[in-house]
């Protein structure tokens, strides 16, 4: 580590699209390790709140207790303050019975079907003692201020006449690494930004039909033909799925090098979809925070550990 060449980079983020449950942004001037670390943290290490403990007092439904408990666990709960909450294992102000405001939120559910019509027990029947932690669809209905009769929430179980379900549930903070129910991300993915070069000289040698077949050879709509100039143009480079169909097509037409596509090694296009537990932009911010904390943990580690590591790597 004598060389003090700085590997420091200052990645740039450009937000393309931002909604509560969806976000698309560019991450530039960094490499795959950085992009992937961000992705992994978003999936597995951003904390949320989810139901973790269920006490069932009455259950005469067709689904058994474990079944219902599992379903309850998978209901996404609004976890905006999850970052500030305590893990129940670290909480020293309670004994983990769910009565503690720092680490847990209590829910109650009580439903009984008394008509001949099937009663749907949904997340809307799940009553929270903390208004900040509620099922995401309930929050959504509350925010939009409109009651949609078709949107009764996330189905837990169906009851028929005489059946009853009564339970107490405790939601706790956790991370996706422990169980997928704590993962705030529905989809987090990125792709390398493709760079497409069309060899215009070679392209001019093609007939219109050939151009058309070239454009059509890509399963996604990457290229199109300019109606005015009849030139092949890149319509949507990001639609390219690195399938190399166009390149193969060009080769089969005897024109290798007609189209050249490279992946830009230092720019990534991220797509983040959230379960609703945390809003997508917040998810990214939280992920960066978690990543920072992890890096801090590494930085603040005892130097001896690093020496050991150095020795391991051959010593320098």
């Amino acid at each position: 580590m004598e060389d003090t060449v700085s590997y420091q980079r200052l990645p740039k983020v450009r937000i393309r699209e931002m909604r509560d449950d969806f976000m698309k942004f560019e991450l530039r001037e960094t490499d795959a390790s950085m992009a992937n670390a961000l992705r992994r943290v978003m999936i597995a290490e951003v904390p949320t709140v989810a139901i973790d403990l269920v006490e069932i007092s009455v259950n005469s439904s067709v689904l058994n207790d474990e079944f219902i408990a599992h379903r309850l666990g998978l209901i996404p709960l609004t976890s905006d303050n999850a970052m500030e909450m305590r893990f129940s294992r670290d909480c020293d102000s309670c004994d983990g019975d769910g009565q503690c405001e720092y680490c847990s939120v209590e829910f109650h559910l009580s439903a009984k079907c008394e008509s001949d019509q099937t009663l749907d027990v949904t997340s809307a029947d799940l009553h929270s003692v903390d208004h900040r932690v509620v099922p995401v669809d309930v929050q959504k209905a509350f925010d939009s201020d409109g009651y949609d009769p078709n949107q009764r929430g996330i189905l837990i179980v169906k009851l028929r006449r005489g059946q009853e379900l009564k339970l107490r549930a405790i939601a706790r903070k956790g991370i996706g690494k422990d169980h997928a129910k704590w993962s705030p991300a529905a989809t987090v993915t990125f792709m390398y930004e493709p760079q497409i070069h069309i060899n215009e000289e070679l392209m001019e040698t093609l007939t219109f039909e050939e151009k058309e077949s070239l454009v059509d050879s890509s399963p996604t709509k990457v290229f199109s033909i300019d109606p005015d100039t009849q030139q092949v143009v890149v319509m949507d480079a990001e639609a390219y799925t690195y399938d190399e169909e166009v390149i193969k097509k060009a080769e089969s037409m005897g024109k290798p090098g007609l189209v050249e596509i490279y992946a830009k090694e230092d720019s990534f296009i991220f797509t983040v979809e959230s379960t609703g537990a945390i809003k997508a932009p917040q998810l990214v911010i939280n992920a960066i925070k978690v990543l920072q904390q992890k890096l801090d943990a590494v930085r603040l580690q005892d130097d001896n550990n690093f020496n050991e590591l150095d020795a391991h790597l051959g010593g320098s």
Partner: protein
Amino acid sequence: MVSQQDDMVSQQEDFGANPNLLAAPIKSPVDKFQLLPAFLKVRGLVKQHIDSFNYFVNYGMKKIMEANALHKVTDTIYLRYINISVGEPYVAIDNIKLTPQFCRLSDRTYSADISVDIEYTDGKGQHPTRKTSVKIGRLPIMLRSCNCVLNGKDETELAKLGECPLDPGGYFVVKGTEKVILIQEQLSKNRILIDIDGKGRITASVTCSTHEVKSKTVFFMDKEKIYLQLNQFVKPIPIMVVMKAMGTESDQEVVQMVGRNPRYGDLLLPSIQECSSERIYSQEQALDYMDAKFNFFKSCSIQLFITSFSTLKEGRAKSILTDVFLAHVPVKEQNFRPKCIYAAVMLRRMLDAILNSDTFDDKDYVGNKRLELSGQLVSLLFEDLFKTMNTQAVQRMNYAMGQSNRSGALDFSRYIVTDIITLGLEKSISTGNWDLKRFRMHKKGVSQVLSRLSYIGALGHMTRISPQFEKTRKVSGPRALQPSQWGMLCPCDTPEGEACGLTKNLALMTHVTTDEEEGPLISLCYSLGVEDLAHLSAEEIYANDSYLVFFNGLILGKHTRPHTFANAMRRVRRSGKIGEFVGFRTFDDFLHDGLIEYLDVNEQNNALIALYEHEAGEIDRSEITHIEIEPLTLLGVVAGLIPYPHHNQSPRNTYQCAMGKQAMGNIAFNQLSRADTLLYLLVYAQRPLLTTKTIELVGYDKLGAGQNATVAVMSYSGYDIEDAIVMNKSSLDRGFGRCIAMKKQTVVRENYGGKVSDIIVAPQRDKDGALIRKNMQILGADGIAEPGQIVRNNDMLVNKKSPLNVDKDLKTRTYKDTPAFFKGVEGETTVIDRVLIYTDNNEKMPIKFIIRHVRRPELGDKFSSRHGQKGVCGTIVNQEDFPFSERGICPDLIMNPHGFPSRMTIGKMIELLGGKAGVSWGRFHYGSAFGEPSGNACKVDDISNALIQKGFSYSGKDFLYSGILGTPLQAYIFMGPIYYQKLKHMVLDKMHARAKGPRVMLTRQPTEGRSRDGGLRLGEMERDCLIAYGASMLIFERLMLSSDPYQVQVCQKCGLLGYYNQKLKKSFCSMCKDGENMATMKLPYACKLLFQELQSMNVVPRLKLTEA
């Protein structure tokens, strides 16, 4: 369509090259698939069982009764049966209607009363007494048969009875367990089979079977001469002697009967010469000759059946000829002519076979086989028991008449013991042992417990055919796939190993027929121009244009224009006038109109069947007689689950057939109210994305056994070698492969009679109110564990006490604790799902606990796709480490590509493609067997196009990024959904290890087997290795110290074992009567045991010790 036909065959000899034409070609048979659901709706999946049972209840029983109607004690005292009927199932005590579900839960037999109308005399009055509805026993009722309460019920009614509407029925409920009587395969009766026997001789054999007799008649040719072989004769009888004995004295007539072709005559000459060299010319001489060859010992049992047994000497041969020889050909008024003609036909076919080896019969030909169904098997049992019951009734009557002090009139009905039939039937069906001395039948495993592991397993069980041969025979012939089993038996569904190819399964649309009334058909044949042979001379039988007409193995007569006759028969059949199964057949409206007909294996030979109308090709269209409804029906129910089976290597389909039955899923709609000993259910079972028509027809889409998993075919981490699967942890968290195992534990509250029984008491508490034992915490106030409670190993289920004495006085009666505990896996939390309490037939009170355990997949659990590709879970990886695509798709599991090249399961690849196109379009794709031409299977081209439209690669490959590095993977990855089944083999049920533990009493060695917490054996091969290596101390440790070390006192003088006297603190030799020279040593207890056992046999092992 095509069918397995049971009984009637109308067979035309020398059928020419001109197959009969159907009336007019059907305009557009494109939509013929529509017929299939209609067909199955009419017929059901296990109609063969139900039909057969219905036939037995409605006709078979009556026939048996009529055959055994009259029982005479004396001439004046008799018992006559007039009518017999079977009622509805009900409980005898409270007259409650029985339902199958009630029987299943309360361990009862689902049975109904058999009642008879009888007429009897008591010897005094002249007028016979009549009694109606006398109960003679109870008959287990087949579910969904005509006597079952479920018969004709719709879905809601079935639901009310606690029954699953998709359950096909066709089985019995005996003592609470569901029992299937397997279809038994048998060689066709009353059929001439030309074959070559073990000694290379040409034989013609007929297995004759009538209601009275079963016999086997064999003609064989030895050194150019033909002989008859019958068990009743010591030696083979020359055939000409037999013919003469039957009254055909002239050699010329015999030759005429066989045929005028001189070549036949040449072949017969040696036989004729032999006969004359024996100087047998007349019937008398022939019979005398045969009498001399009579086998006394073997025929003793047969004599029971000989009705016309007359004089001792002469009668014998003649009576054998009448009753045993070709027994199915009736002899009326000493007229042996039909038998002569039949024998001649056998001879002719033998000679034909010599002249032209093509005319040999094939024993394995499906047309030469018959299937015996539950109705027939129960009928055999019933006949035997009915006879036993009547003999006993007669005996008792006889005995009662002998009693002088009898009071009142004799009532025959009182001597009919109802238990014989009830218990006999119940015992046979519940054990599966058909032991009928009367029919010399000793079959084991005829009935089996219906496998309820999966819905498809239960269906597959009901279509299974158990083999006629024993499994140990190492023959290839009967195991091979027969071309004639097309459309009748599933070519895929057979087990691996010893029963391979012998145990078979029915194809989807196979119909097995019951008997048809013979009389009207015979007269129909005659009116259609069949000439009775009785009126014909031998010469005329084989006149140029005459053809023999066989009816159920009997020669009916001859016909001069066979095509006209066959067409006429077919026309009658198509017009629905005679049973559809007379040779060939039709269904419902179409059946009545004669547009669809069933073809039996034998008739298929005379038909030219096309798969599709448009595929005729080189064959002239006008020559096609039939079109298959759908080629996919040639597979069975179980093989029908496989998508694109015709793209797979054939053994893979067979493997899947075996595994589909082990897959977990939904068993039935009433699965949660059932009380099986072991039940595996999948938490989120799905229907396959790539389905087949069969799946929809059998209802597998409603009771699926698997989940659609997104599979990436790639290598990952090395934990996927040897077919192991890498699984995504998040998928498992979300419920993939999660299953429920329900186990039953029964505790019986015994009843000792006289109102003395076990008692169940509330959990005892000490004065502070705390439970006296910790493991009582799940007990309710009634002393029985409560549903919903979490139960751990050794928790108490029932707080039961048993009486120590049977004192009438409750105060002096004392009890001891006999609690029941839960035996489960240590460390696992299981839950009591349900508790069932009921009273059984013996006034005992069993308590059934259904104990539920929800499991998520773990390392080593077994999974399989539908293409015979099984694998265990090799590792579970977090989702963030899994590869992902830029769309955000992340597979549920990763499969190693090495699974493909050697297995050649192209079907799986197409399933992946089709499934991927299916999810992206939101529809189900089809992959029915051979379905591409008819549109029942999607073509790969179409699927690829569908994929391209959704922006995927046509090849189904995706560009993936590594989840660990974030960099693109080197190759495109073949990824998409495949239906995966979780198989019942789970690590939790199998893993086992022990340090110290229980030992066997006798040898003091560790016990064997997981269930007894046994040790792991170091066997002789392992021992050999250690010896070869020279690791003597290790051997010593394994074989003695860790097994059964034992210290003995050895007398160095006599070398025998002594003992240690604890009082004197001294060892002693009981042989030498002193304690000198004693040495102490260690040896395995088993060794000491061996010495003592040898001593008990007067063998003296002596130990000679040296100092060590």
